[in-house]
């Protein structure tokens, strides 16, 4: 281990030990927004935001290795789950702007994301276009120096409390997907936007539907170029499938360690199940670290889908084991947002960000080089 990394780890551990908020973090609504922003602001003031982001946009310009160390210490300290209202800004919009944004877009948005001054949501999925993202129908028409948006998005997490949305719209109704869409920064307070929260079986409000009625967005908000939204969106999804879930994965492997500690020695079958999960977690962690470290050189390739798929299935297994270990009666008493929530929310792991079936298709076709199957 490099000495500077060991020192970095110790600094992270010390800072987290002194600053991690006590108690359960509020999750949704205005309270969840305020908490997430305040916690991000505190990390930024402490010098712990954007560890691997470039210096010129407010990051620390360190390597992915330091980022990994931070994630490890963050999880070890029991810090608030990073799957909160800031997740899209820090893990989708931010990296996409770094890769494809204009200098003005970077200068305006990236520091705000890092300092806990803005919340982003994603506007990709539609009622008829989830895994089949190319079926997007929300239209964007160029009128003068504006895009005029009409349509509907759904499953937009935290849209009800977001300031900005990474919005994917169809700007050429006739072109193939690669030339049909535009990725645009949508200010959520623009007239014509209506947000409707959707209550899920896991408890808190998180997902929203967003309706657009002649919403006018300046063309200067387009990222990656008009009709170039598909490659821009794919780079966002590549991050999600590769490195974005790294912090969550580390937290999950530590949850398994804690469960092993909590499991009575008399429960031999549960111990064996947890040991199996521990091995599975270690394997996924190794794959994820490889993808993360490679991502310093280039946008993650299709093999990131291996990590995304394994992580999603792993998350479901861990939460299922947790509820079996601690019991149904403790369903609201333990876990990040209650065991019952964590168990039921994990169902979405293999659906969100491209279903497990889509990941398997990607792995089959692009990693293994198998012939394409029928769609």
């Amino acid at each position, binding site marked *: 281990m490099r000495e500077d990394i060991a020192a970095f780890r110790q600094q992270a551990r010390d800072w987290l030990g002194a600053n991690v908020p006590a108690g359960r973090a509020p999750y949704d609504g205005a309270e969840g927004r305020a908490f997430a922003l305040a916690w991000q602001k505190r990390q930024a003031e402490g010098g712990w935001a954007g560890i691997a982001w470039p210096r010129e946009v407010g990051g620390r310009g360190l390597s992915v290795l330091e980022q990994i160390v931070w994630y490890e210490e963050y999880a070890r300290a029991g810090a608030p789950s990073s799957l909160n209202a800031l997740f899209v800004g820090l893990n989708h919009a931010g990296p996409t702007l770094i890769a494809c944004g204009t200098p003005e877009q970077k200068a305006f948005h990236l520091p705000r994301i890092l300092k806990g001054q803005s919340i982003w949501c994603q506007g990709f*999925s539609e009622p*008829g276009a*989830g*895994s*089949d993202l190319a*079926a997007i129908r929300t239209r964007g028409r160029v009128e003068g120096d504006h895009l005029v948006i009409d349509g509907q998005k*759904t*499953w937009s997490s935290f849209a009800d409390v977001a300031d900005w949305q990474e919005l994917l719209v169809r700007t050429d109704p006739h072109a193939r997907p690669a030339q049909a869409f535009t990725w645009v920064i949508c200010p959520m307070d623009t007239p014509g936007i209506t947000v409707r929260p*959707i*209550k*899920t*079986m*896991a*408890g808190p409000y998180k*997902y929203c539907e967003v309706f657009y009625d002649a919403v006018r967005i300046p063309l200067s908000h387009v990222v990656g170029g008009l009709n170039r939204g598909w490659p821009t969106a794919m780079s966002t999804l590549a991050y999600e499938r590769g490195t974005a879930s790294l912090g969550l994965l580390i937290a999950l492997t530590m949850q398994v360690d804690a469960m092993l500690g909590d499991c009575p020695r008399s429960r031999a*079958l549960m111990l064996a199940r947890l040991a199996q999960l521990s091995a599975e977690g270690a394997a996924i962690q190794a794959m994820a670290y490889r993808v993360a470290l490679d991502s310093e050189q280039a946008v993650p390739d299709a093999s990131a889908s291996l990590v995304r798929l394994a992580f999603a299935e792993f998350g*479901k297994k861990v939460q*299922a084991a947790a*509820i*079996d270990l601690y*019991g*149904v*009666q403790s*369903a*609201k008493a333990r876990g990040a947002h*209650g065991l*019952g*929530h964590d*168990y*039921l929310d994990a*169902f*979405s792991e*293999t*659906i*969100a960000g491209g*279903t*497990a*079936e889509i990941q*398997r298709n990607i792995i089959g076709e692009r990693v293994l080089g198998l012939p394409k*199957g029928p*769609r």
Partner: protein
Amino acid sequence: MNFSLTDDQSSVLSGLDQLLGQFDEPGVRHAVTHVYSAALAEALAQAGFLDVAREAGFGALDAALLVERVAREPHVVEAGASALIAPILPIDAGVRPIALLSGDLTGVARFLPVASLLVVDRGDHALLLPVDRDKVEPVETLLAYPYGKLAEVDPALGTRFEDVKAIRRRWRVALAAEAAGCMAAALAAVIEHVTARFAFGRPLGSLQAIHHRLAMASETAESTRWLALRAAWSDDPADAAVAAGFAQSRIAQFTYDLHQFSGAMGLTLEFPLHLWTYRLRALASELGGASQQARELAKTVWGEAA
């Protein structure tokens, strides 16, 4: 074992369907997480369905058929213990709903907040305790059933019942029958969804990845139903352990697959699937879970040494 319904069974189930049809309120399907229906429980009791096993010529199999059918409903009612366990207890007909518990008298029990009687498996005997609902503390679980616990219990208020093995046997049958009903309803909802929903220009259900796993889900639902009915028919402890254990061991994969193919819509309260997901998850943990049923089966077949 006869695989066709008798004329009497067909008649009972037909009457049951008529009654359940009157409670088909679409609002219940889409808006709420806790759906215990005192009105449906009362209607079932008044019509005599919960006492079917007490009638001459009827028995546990008929009660299991009823429990399975009622579990398909979006409403939650306590039918398993009333229909399958009450008839073997030294209690008057009509004492219901009944909550069931193993071990500690102050443990968390399904249906306890609405129960009139708590039946506790104390290992070598059972204790039948009248329930003062004002003393029940509700326990929130997100899992549809009303759960609760008693802060303190005076065992002297209970009636001792020796044949605790019969209670366990019927409890397992009831659990398996209820799981079978939940599975059948959940599967039907998802098949409707993947048939109507299009992606990539074709019905979702035409994709082979979905075909195959729904076929496996169908096998799980059908197997659970037949094992539950076999156990009710034989009233045999090994059959009961097989039925409950099989159902519990399959619930996790079954519910994950059904939700996977319902997409994000299936995670919302606007789609009915969660009504059965909640209940199946709760049933998967009852009586110690699948591994406990496997141990019970081994003991039944090979004796205490197993």
